[in-house]
């Protein structure tokens, strides 16, 4: 869309004044929001921030590196339980969050090994098996899952003179912002390009010097790290964990967010996360018809916009750029 003349220009996150204006406007609005919007709205945005982090991570793996994974619920659970146990032991929140991400990332490497030999549906099955295995282990081990009472996670209560919901929102908003910037950076770096090369043709990628073992495992580790952090944040927000919260449905939710948002798109990941959370919530008054409404909206989006929400977004931008010409 833009004419890029140098590598430095390519690396720039925001290339035009106008874009800077709109991005600034959006960020400003998001910062001011908790002071004017209802607490319900703020809570939904907090949830979107949490899910956006995991969706971005999975998009790195599925969208950018082209490795299909159905193990999201497993990584989410590992992150959530790591965080839960550490928070109960009195470890500071940020440290526990980091540990949640690292623990999930380490398991990501383990799950990544089969990806060196397996592709497509075969890899999908392996990761699916991992997700189910994690659930089973948690359901059967009282030591890990906190036993028959579930695991209560102490809530993070900042006393900094602003309402709790607002503080919680700011924390998640800043974290999501940091992850978004990190993702943009990563995608534009050598690593990001290596991911894309592997997706497009792994043999060719190897021929031009991309270390397949290293970058496939890295893709798994990084994406799992993101999902682990999402799990930790989720545990913190809900304050209670039981294995039934990490069934295959959770995998589907994140997977749908990646696809609906648009493969290989950072902004798409955020839009996808917003989609999977907002559609059921906005229609919650329709009661028993929600699954139908949800399913139909997914159909509609994918039939009319196979590139997902980010594809539609790109077309809208292009339309206005060329307006009044078409």
């Amino acid at each position: 869309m833009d004419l890029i003349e140098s590598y430095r220009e390519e690396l720039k996150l925001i290339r035009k004044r106008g874009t800077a204006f709109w991005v600034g406007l959006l960020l400003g609005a998001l910062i001011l929001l908790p002071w004017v919007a209802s607490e319900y709205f703020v809570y939904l945005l907090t949830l979107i921030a949490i899910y956006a982090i995991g969706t971005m991570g999975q998009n790195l793996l599925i969208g950018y590196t082209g490795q299909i994974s159905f193990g999201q619920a497993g990584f989410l659970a590992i992150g959530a339980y790591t965080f839960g146990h550490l928070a109960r032991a009195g470890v500071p929140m940020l440290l526990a969050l980091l540990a949640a991400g690292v623990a999930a990332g380490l398991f990501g490497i383990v799950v990544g090994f089969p990806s060196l030999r397996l592709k497509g549906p075969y890899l999908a099955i392996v990761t699916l098996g991992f997700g189910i295995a994690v659930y089973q282990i948690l359901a059967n081990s009282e030591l890990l899952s906190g036993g028959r009472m579930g695991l209560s996670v102490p809530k993070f209560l900042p006393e900094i003179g602003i309402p709790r919901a607002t503080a919680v929102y700011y924390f998640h908003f800043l974290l999501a912002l940091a992850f978004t910037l990190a993702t943009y950076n990563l995608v534009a770096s050598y690593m990001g390009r290596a991911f894309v090369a592997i997706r497009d043709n792994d043999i060719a990628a190897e021929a031009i010097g991309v270390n397949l073992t290293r970058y496939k495992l890295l893709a798994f580790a990084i994406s799992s790290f993101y999902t682990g952090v999402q799990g930790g944040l989720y545990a913190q927000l809900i304050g209670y964990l039981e294995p039934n919260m990490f069934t295959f449905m959770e995998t589907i939710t994140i997977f749908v967010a990646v696809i609906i948002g648009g493969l290989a798109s950072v902004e798409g990941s955020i839009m996808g996360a917003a989609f999977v959370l907002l559609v059921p919530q906005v229609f919650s008054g329709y009661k028993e018809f929600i699954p139908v409404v949800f399913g139909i909206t997914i159909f509609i989006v994918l039939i009319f916009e196979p590139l997902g929400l980010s594809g539609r977004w790109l077309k809208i931008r292009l339309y206005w750029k060329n307006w009044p010409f078409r």
Partner: protein
Amino acid sequence: MRRNGLRWVLCSLVLLVCLIPVSVRAGGVPGVTDKEVVIGWTTPLSGPAALWGVTALGGKAWADYINDQGGVNGRKIKILLKDDAYNPTRALANLQEMKGKVFAVTGLLGTAVVHACRDFFPENKVPLITAYGNTRMWEKYPKDRLRYIFISYPDYEDEAEFLATYAFQKLGSKKFAIFYQNDDYGKMGLAGVKRAMEKFPGKAQLAASVSYELTERALDTHALKLKESGADTVILYTTMSHGGLILKAMAKFGYRPKVLTSFPLGDPIMYRVAGEVWEGVYPASSAHSGIPGSDPEADRVADILKKYNPKIKGKEYLAVFGAVSMMYTIEGLKRAGRNLTPEAMIHAMESIRNWKPEGIGAPVNFGPNRHHGVNGSRLLQAKGGKHVPITDYILYKPHF
């Protein structure tokens, strides 16, 4: 030039902010007007536990009936009903949405949901009148927070202990087996049975404890394991559908021991789920609700509910269960009087002594030091398509 840009940004920001939905803070008590009081109800109307959402339909039908009788203290009851699909994230979001709009919340359903949402009530000064989930979570809950919570739900472990004890003492059972769901509900059942076994060392034994996962449907191997244990009595802590499946599988192998079950299987709809193998089973039922088809009081309520919502037909047990929760809320509203505040509601609920909602169930007692209104069971037997009570109400110690 740069300054100009900044001004633009600021102006646009202000404009944008004006467009955002602003939280409405009306004066007075949330959810209460001169003519209306709003009760929030989030429940699974879709997803794996959708059947249990009938409790909310029953509660709403009862509120409609009371409204037709003139309401409570000159106010009509409005139910704000939302679907949470048994998902704690969504339940919490629904409650956030209800904040400022509802006076109280009734009938929260699911252990994970209740646990995730419990802090919402004291933090926002919204009374929670009845919740259906593992009661042990309230035991160590701080007292100043527990003030907002009123529960009438039996404890699974107490119930399991009672079932095993009763079978040993009255049904002549000696060798027990338990078939349970691999989660907190099933494991509490197991703990209760073990507790009962410890009371009769050498006389009663637990020969097998077999667990299953919620996703399993083929239960033949489990049935064989139960059969091989040689137990004369099997206790079930399962969902309705798994209870039906395991009994059919056991019958297939010619294994017909005495069967006792936890109260979620107390619904006579089990005859349709399990078929003829259900005949003779001893299901427990919660002491706080009634059995349509056996209790005339419950029948009267069920008839009213069906008039207000014909969809309830065939699901009377759960509908009455939910309607009883609504009766608790209405009793509180009545006692709180015309000047309705959360504090008045708490005092009103705490003043309830020896009260039976429409004559249903065991007497309810709340108080400043007691927020577990009824903790008890009644044993039923499946006979000729009906669930017939064979014991009186057995009350356990309240837990909080």
